[in-house]
């Protein structure tokens, strides 16, 4: 017997997995972001089908906001501005695909062969109300810890991404000292080499202004 819920589940699952695959196949990082959002929205819809309505809708809201922020970062780190250049931003593709298949197969084996207890949610029960009472009752410590952890995350991310470090300029405070006085502070093999990077199939990179070998730190700050 195939009901509406089963049909909806198949549609949402196929959409979630297909847009998930699309994330790593498209040519544009912005498109990848929106495909990831589509994948999350479909999973949120499946959560609603599973009677976790609150979590499904929360996932929907949270991911929409998160992917908009992600889109901003995608623009900042975009390898292929305006889609003008062909882009190939993968490495070790065969190993990665094999690892993905093995990981999926591992979970799938558990899904097919493991024996789990059969205790489904009562469709009549008010799951949202129960979750609210649990969050502000028995699991209040967990809930409050998540809040404090998120607060610490905000402080940490501001400190990590701040331009001014503890010892003055962030470029000075966060990099290793020079091996000899007056030398460049990076080890020689670590200097960014545009030619080598081009060899790594980086067609979409804009090399202008990235040759920081000669660039002093003051200029760099203006650029960024």
């Amino acid at each position: 017997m195939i009901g509406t819920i089963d049909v909806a589940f198949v549609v949402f699952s196929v959409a979630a997995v297909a847009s998930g695959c699309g994330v790593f196949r498209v040519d544009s990082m912005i498109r990848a972001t929106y495909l990831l959002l589509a994948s999350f929205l479909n999973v949120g819809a499946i959560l609603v089908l599973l009677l976790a309505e609150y979590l499904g809708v929360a996932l929907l809201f949270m991911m929409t906001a998160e992917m908009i922020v992600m889109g901003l970062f995608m623009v900042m780190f975009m390898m292929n501005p305006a889609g003008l250049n062909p882009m190939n931003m993968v490495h070790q593709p065969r190993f990665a695909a094999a690892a993905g298949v093995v990981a999926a197969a591992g979970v799938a084996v558990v899904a097919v062969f493991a024996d789990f207890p059969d205790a489904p949610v009562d469709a009549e029960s008010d799951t949202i109300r129960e979750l609210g009472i649990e969050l502000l009752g028995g699991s209040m410590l967990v809930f409050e810890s998540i809040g404090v952890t998120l607060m610490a995350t905000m402080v940490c991310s501001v400190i990590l991404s701040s331009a001014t470090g503890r010892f003055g300029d962030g470029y000075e405070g966060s990099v290793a000292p020079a091996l000899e006085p007056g030398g460049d502070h990076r080890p020689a093999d670590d200097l960014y080499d545009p030619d080598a990077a081009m060899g790594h199939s980086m067609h979409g990179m804009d090399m202008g202004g990235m040759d920081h070998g000669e660039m002093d730190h003051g200029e760099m700050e203006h650029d960024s």
Partner: protein
Amino acid sequence: MNLMTVLLVAAALIGVGVWGALAQQTFVMLMMGIEMMLNGVILAVAGFWAFTGAGLPKGQVLVIITMAVMAIELAIGFALVTAVYRARQADMTEGIGSLKG
């Protein structure tokens, strides 16, 4: 829709995430692979709650923890990407190979 089908979809999402995280070169795309894995984890946990937990709300609390992990991963990840870019002008995994043996 039963536990097995939900877990199979979660397996597919986790596999796609592993593939993406290992294959992509940019840090931000690598983080999207991790997000995709957590997407599958959320689905699997919700599936376990719906089919094996007898509706105990503690299962949903686990989903909320996973969602918090996802948000923290994204925030700290972006902060680290920004810090690495400031220090090394690297936005790709090959750009910071100095710890490689």
